[in-house]
């Protein structure tokens, strides 16, 4: 499923990196520990986190992730937003918490 479709179906805001909305999502990975994501996320995963700094995009890019979802209304730091645009990896926003968005995403991706 494409990032665009997931954003529409789950009512996520596209904060940045709109050029990457056609990226294909394989599965998801939720963690706020960067080395955990580095070690265990798979390419194509959509990453659910509350970390809002630039290193999130460095990892998303190195791991070929499809997009990042920021939970609970968190917004990216300006340099994170900038790198998201440069790398074409969308940052999506939701006011929901990690548990809720994970559940919805899990059901949607496993349909």
């Amino acid at each position, binding site marked *: 499923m494409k990032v665009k479709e997931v954003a529409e179906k789950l009512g996520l805001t596209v904060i940045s990196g709109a050029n990457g909305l056609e990226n294909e999502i394989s599965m998801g990975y939720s963690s*706020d*520990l960067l*080395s*955990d994501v580095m*070690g265990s996320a798979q390419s194509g995963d959509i990453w659910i986190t509350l*970390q809002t700094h*630039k*290193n999130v995009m*460095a990892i998303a890019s190195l791991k070929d992730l499809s997009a990042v979802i920021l939970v609970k209304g968190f917004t990216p730091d300006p340099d994170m937003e900038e790198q998201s645009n440069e790398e074409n990896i969308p940052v999506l926003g939701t006011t929901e918490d990690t548990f809720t968005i994970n559940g919805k995403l899990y059901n949607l991706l496993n349909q």
Partner: protein
Amino acid sequence: MHFEFNVEGGNFSKAGTASSQLKKILKQLNVDPKVIKRVVVALYEAEVNIVAHAFNGIIYIDIDTEKIEIKLIDEGPGIADIELAMQQGYSTASPEVREMGFGAGMGLPNIKNNTDELKVTSEVGKGTTVEMITYLSS
């Protein structure tokens, strides 16, 4: 082929620059994507360790037809007990660094899992050297 990169301790906004450059280089060389993924994880973790724990460092990368050899030499506090540092969950990261989501104590285990050969040497009060080798075909 030989490449060198400088790493500044404490500068998180530049963390990952060398890893991102190496990824581009390896892609251009048509290296197996699986190998690229492993090397990139290992280098990123070692690079961030210099940023998070040391003062400054240099990364030396040598690529030939058989393998990718990476050596990171830093000036910093060094590691007193390397065996302990290698254990998952062990971290001396500062509260500020932890707040960013670093400091899970998973970096060195990630390096171990993603290299074919790894050697960490260190002198307390001077610095740390991390040497890793990844073979291009398994």
